[in-house]
């Protein structure tokens, strides 16, 4: 319904009440440009203020945000759109707000929207894809209350189409009729003229004989009388002699022998041609023909005849033709209207669908009928709707899922120990970072019995939600069994017994479990296929990689020995200043762009350097350094696997400090050098 816009204005403002003035200023200028009357402008300003206030208050709840305004001026309408990215609200657009209801309830809410609806000709609220649009249109002229709806319906596409078709058809029919009528008239007149000419020649011939034979006046009179009586279209026959004296007069015999005076001014022209005479009441035509015998001229015949008969005939024909045309047009109107409906209905349907679609309703397909062109549009629209609807579904699904994962991640975080025990004068440090939102790694440290601590690092195969769920279970299972077991080995066996029946097939867990006795500084270690424990000997500056035999948990026992048989416990003793590190392969297998792994050598070097360079340095800092180095190696933002480690360091005896520092340099070099094998136990 809109034509090409004359002007478009876009502006953006902070969503604050102090900017309402600026918004109104822009609107006022736009309205003035469009030629809107002053009193209408102030109403529009009011509506815009209401819309903007609503956004500030309800969409943004007075928080930071922006209002974008778009004004499009058409020749007869202005379109105002207010956009925001805040909360969407559901305006009561189903029915117009009832003023009396507002008074009755004493509510103020909704008054603003009521005012907008009253002032604007149309108000729409569209909420999609993260922003909301309040779209309002106002006609530039006239009062909005005077039924624009009715007029618009009156001039709907269907009516317009019918009207124009009818108009064109009518013009064609009338033009054809007119032309046809003219042709007929001319033919009839020509025919009459010919008849009259022929008759006049006959009269002239007969009169010539009469003159030669010197007939009497009565005979002349009879001749004229008989001619005029037998030819009703002839109104006058006058015969004159060469002296222009009347020989016979069909209407007035007293004129005989008198000079002939024509009753009408005779138009000039050669004899024998028909000349039309303009007269007030009758359509007369005049014909004059010489009376002659060979070359001898004897006189003249004057004939006046009327076209009355023809005219009457033509009039009848015209009335019949008009009646017929009118009847045809009436039938035509109905036909055209039906035909138009047939053509327009698909458009109306499509428009209605698109409107529904824009208001967010995705259900319902367009019927695939009508002309091929509409069929194409309908099909395309259906397809578009379906696709968009699916996309939206997917998006919703995705959002839901990511929210779920976020929840899972939160839960998982709460499942990891939020506080580690610090038994005696041990330093304990742990780190965990999942590769995705939820991880499958686990670390834990808790007191099993007085002075005995259980330390665990585990890696559940796979990543994401399934791994994390198993991990959560695993932690609980270990805690339960560790407290009810005498040794690390017993714990592991019990855990395995439980897991065999309770972990999804195809999933397995590697695990390193150590029981540390604070009183003796002895560590009992079991492994279920996990990477070795790193033991840093503070006294020598060397590392031991301790790897007790044991199969991963959850691996089907197809080998010749059972899980129980595969597990062996190793005991180690910690010297003052020693450090043990339990970790998952997320550290050592972190790869850089060239596919090179971080490796255990680098890890050892880091630990060694850090512990050797200063005895004061806490292992908290060591933890930070390890993470930094691993991240630096893999590159920012690239983490393929969960990174987890747990380390414990025994207190350093002050008297042994010096000796260690002295010993360190030679070994340090040895370790850093990649080409030489690292000393391991």
């Amino acid at each position, binding site marked *: 319904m809109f034509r090409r816009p004359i002007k478009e204005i876009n502006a953006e403002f902070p969503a604050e*009440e102090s900017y*309402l003035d600026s918004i109104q200023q822009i609107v006022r200028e736009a309205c003035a440009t469009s030629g809107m009357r002053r009193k209408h402008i102030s109403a529009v300003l009011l509506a815009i203020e209401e819309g903007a206030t609503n956004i500030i208050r309800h969409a943004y709840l007075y928080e930071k945000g922006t209002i974008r305004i778009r004004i499009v001026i058409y020749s007869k309408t202005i379109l105002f759109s207010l956009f925001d990215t805040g909360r969407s609200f559901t305006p009561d657009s189903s029915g117009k707000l009832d003023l009396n209801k507002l008074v009755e309830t*004493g*509510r103020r809410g909704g008054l603003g929207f009521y005012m907008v609806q009253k002032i604007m000709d149309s108000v729409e609220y569209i909420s999609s894809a993260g922003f909301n649009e309040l779209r309002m249109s106002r006609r530039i002229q006239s009062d909005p209350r005077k039924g624009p709806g009715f007029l618009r319906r009156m001039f709907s596409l269907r009516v317009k189409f019918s009207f124009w078709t009818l108009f064109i058809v009518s013009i064609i029919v009338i033009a054809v009729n007119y032309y046809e009528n003219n042709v007929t008239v001319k033919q009839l007149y020509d025919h009459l003229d010919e008849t009259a000419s022929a008759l006049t020649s006959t009269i002239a011939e007969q009169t010539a004989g009469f003159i030669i034979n010197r007939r009497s006046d009565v005979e002349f009179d009879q001749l004229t009388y008989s001619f005029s009586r037998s030819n009703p279209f002839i109104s006058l026959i006058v015969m004159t002699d060469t002296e222009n004296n009347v020989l016979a007069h069909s209407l007035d015999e007293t004129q005989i022998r008198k000079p002939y005076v024509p009753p009408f001014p005779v138009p000039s022209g050669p004899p024998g041609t028909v000349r039309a005479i303009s007269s007030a009441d009758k359509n007369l035509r005049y014909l004059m023909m010489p009376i002659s015998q060979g070359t001898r001229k004897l006189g003249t015949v004057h004939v006046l005849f009327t076209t009355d008969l023809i005219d009457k005939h033509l009039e009848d024909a015209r009335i019949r033709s008009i009646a017929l045309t009118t009847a045809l047009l009436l039938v035509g109107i109905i036909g055209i209207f039906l035909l138009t409906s047939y053509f327009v209905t698909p458009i109306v349907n499509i428009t209605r669908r698109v409107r529904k679609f824009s208001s967010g309703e995705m259900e319902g397909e367009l019927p695939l009928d009508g002309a091929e062109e509409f069929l194409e549009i309908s099909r395309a629209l259906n397809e578009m709707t379906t696709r968009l609807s699916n996309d939206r579904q997917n998006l919703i699904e995705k959002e839901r899922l990511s929210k779920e994962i976020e929840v899972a991640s939160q839960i998982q975080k709460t499942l990891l120990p939020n506080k580690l025990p610090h038994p005696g004068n041990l330093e304990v440090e742990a780190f965990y970072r999942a590769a995705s939102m939820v991880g499958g790694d686990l670390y834990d440290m808790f007191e099993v019995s007085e002075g005995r601590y259980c330390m665990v690092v585990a890696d559940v195969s796979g990543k994401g939600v399934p791994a994390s769920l198993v991990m959560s279970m695993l932690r609980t299972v270990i805690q339960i069994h560790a407290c009810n077991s005498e040794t690390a080995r017993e714990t592991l066996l019990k855990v395995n017994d439980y897991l065999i029946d309770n972990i999804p097939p195809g999933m397995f867990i590697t695990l390193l479990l150590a029981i540390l006795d604070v009183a003796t500084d002895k560590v009992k270690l079991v492994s279920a296929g996990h990477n070795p424990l790193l033991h840093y000997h503070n006294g020598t500056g060397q590392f031991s990689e301790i790897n007790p035999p044991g199969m991963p948990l959850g691996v089907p026992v197809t080998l010749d020995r059972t899980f129980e048989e595969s597990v062996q416990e190793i005991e180690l003793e910690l010297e003052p200043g020693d450090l043990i590190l339990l970790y998952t392969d997320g550290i050592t297998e972190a790869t850089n762009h060239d596919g090179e792994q971080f490796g255990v050598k680098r890890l050892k070097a880091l630990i060694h350097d850090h512990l050797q360079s200063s005895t004061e340095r806490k292992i908290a800092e060591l933890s930070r350094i390890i993470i930094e180095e691993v991240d630096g190696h893999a590159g920012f933002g690239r983490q393929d696997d969960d990174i987890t480690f747990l380390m414990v360091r025994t207190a350093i005896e002050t008297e042994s400090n010096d000796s260690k520092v002295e010993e360190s340099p030679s070994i340090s070099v040895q370790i850093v050098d990649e080409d030489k094998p690292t000393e391991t136990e």
Partner: protein
Amino acid sequence: MADNIKVSLSENKLAEGISEVRVDGVIDTLTAGDLAEVMESLIHRERYRIVIDLAGVDYISSAGWGIIISHIKEVRSQEGDIKLANMVPDVYEIFELLEFDNVLKVFGSVSDAASDFNGSNPVKKKD
């Protein structure tokens, strides 16, 4: 648009029991609070016969209309009313457009508005 508003209240000047609220300026979101305060105080003191003189007001937003409309029911239930006087043409046109003329009476002067109270049955309240 000026951000200022002046609301002045004179009680019993027009007639016994009638309060006249004279507003000057613009009644919009930012300024409506002042009018709201005066109205609340009148109703709190059970003065239900109110004439609002709008001679000096050239713009009223929904915040302003809301204050007036939201009190109609209460004052009428106490046999009082809110009557408007001296509306400027600009305001009146919007007033009409919004069909507020169906729920509020408008008078050419404050005295007309005040005498309309006497026309209705006079009430001696405890004020």
